[in-house]
């Protein structure tokens, strides 16, 4: 880290050079491909097969097939809105990762980076609903409404988790949050916020226990009537969102690029891969949660617990003076 200082006198990360605008999405995509590959390997193992190269490249082969597959058409679709939604999921992930530092470099060192990240996660709401609305078909619409209905239950605990980390660092700038973890990672004294955050990441990418909007009981929900490149974009978008969430967990709770010996960017990558691995494992292990159960759990249990957790850094910061 260099010695440029912000108002509170802490060291901050550098804005990266212009080429990082291309590097950040590339890194995001690379990590997402790694996550999908790991997921395919886990799926193979769950099916009792032995590890093989063929198993690992299944998702990539599927992606290639979708690239050449014809798009699916329905009667009187709203193509414009469908395309907006399909692209929106991936675009939100890429824009979200713009404020996430890789080591001591970041594409945009926004002073309200945490709020920006949250706003981009929320864009998923709008995008997923559009994907549900666009095809003018029953199951996608049900899936889209399922996502919107649970949106606040996903969003509020997630937002409180972000606030907890920001309160601990007394800053909305992601770099300051990393700098505040020199002595102690936030995950140590904000474990509840960390868990709530991970749940939110899974929820916003509608994967694993939160795949209710794309559930099997409604024939794939929002995915049901997409085909070809649309489907590829949508599937890629949700994995990109998962990866973006895992990448943001590192500066928020796991000390960002801080660590001994290795350069900062290596630490960032290592930690991101670790969080991603945990998320992919959880996605395979946990069953889908029904919406009515999760919504009540979120409002009655998660939000109060997350508020209590946010109170801890608030009191600590107040005590420090």
């Amino acid at each position: 880290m260099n010695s440029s200082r912000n108002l509170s006198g802490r060291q901050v990360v550098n804005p990266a050079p212009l080429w990082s605008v291309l590097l950040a999405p590339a890194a995001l995509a690379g990590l997402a491909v790694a996550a999908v590959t790991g997921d395919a390997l886990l799926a193979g193992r769950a099916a009792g097969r032995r590890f093989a190269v063929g198993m690992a490249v299944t998702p990539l082969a599927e992606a290639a097939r979708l690239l050449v597959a014809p798009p699916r058409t329905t009667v009187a679709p709203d193509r414009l809105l469908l395309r907006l939604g399909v692209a929106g999921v991936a675009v939100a992930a890429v824009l979200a990762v713009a404020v996430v530092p890789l080591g001591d470099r970041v594409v945009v060192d926004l002073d309200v980076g945490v709020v920006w990240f949250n706003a981009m996660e929320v864009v998923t709401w709008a995008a997923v609903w559009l994907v549900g609305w666009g095809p003018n078909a029953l199951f996608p619409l049900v899936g889209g409404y399922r996502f919107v209905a649970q949106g606040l239950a996903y969003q509020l605990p997630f937002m409180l988790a972000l606030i907890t980390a920001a309160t601990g660092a007394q800053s909305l700038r992601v770099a300051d949050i990393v700098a505040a973890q020199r002595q102690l990672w936030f995950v140590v004294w904000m474990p509840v916020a960390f868990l709530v955050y991970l749940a939110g990441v899974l929820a916003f990418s509608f994967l694993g226990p939160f795949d209710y909007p794309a559930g099997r009981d409604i024939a794939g929900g929002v995915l049901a009537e997409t085909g070809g490149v649309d489907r590829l974009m949508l599937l890629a978008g949700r994995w990109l969102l998962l990866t973006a969430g895992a990448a943001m967990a590192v500066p928020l709770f796991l000390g960002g690029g801080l660590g001994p010996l290795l350069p900062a960017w290596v630490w960032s990558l290592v930690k991101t891969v670790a969080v991603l691995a945990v998320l992919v494992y959880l996605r395979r292990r946990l069953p889908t949660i029904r919406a009515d159960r999760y919504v009540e759990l979120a409002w009655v249990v998660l939000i109060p617990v997350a508020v209590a957790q946010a109170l801890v850094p608030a009191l600590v910061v107040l005590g420090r003076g």
Partner: protein
Amino acid sequence: MDVVVFWVLALLAVASGILVFRLSSMARVTYALLGSFLFIGGELILLGLNYLGVVVILMMVMEMVIMAVFMIAYMMNPAGLMPMSMVHNRRGALAISGVVFAALAAGIAAVPLPAPAATRPPDPTLQLGESLMGGQMLTMMTLGFALLATMVAATVLSTGRGRYDRFGDDLERRIPNDPVPGGVGRR
């Protein structure tokens, strides 16, 4: 550069604002309004209000998605597949809003506005936070109570089931009888 960004955002905001009342699909209408607010948020960021700009974007995305649900629930023709008119007194409304715009524009052109301020606060977000938690604390508390009152009132108005439906005529049930079982404690 800033001037170009201002004009692009301003024209897009106005254009999507006009589209709100020109489109017939309710989903498109809602997302046009959302687009207008995204550009308004961009204008705020251009003015140096990063926090408020991003918050406007964040809030409007949530608000418009919820709006879309109600739009479609209460409109006779949500997808706009059968064109129909849902307006009254269109000419009068056009005239009134045109006159209002002309008056406002004339006022903007005629009133001598003071010279732009020279000093800027180092951190507008910090300024806002310190103001809301200090001098403007009463405003913040009023907003908080108003929001709480809104939540209670909106729930009371919109719910179709009262406590006698949930707990029985003599309120004798310990566990409410709800159509949706929920995830905590009830079956």
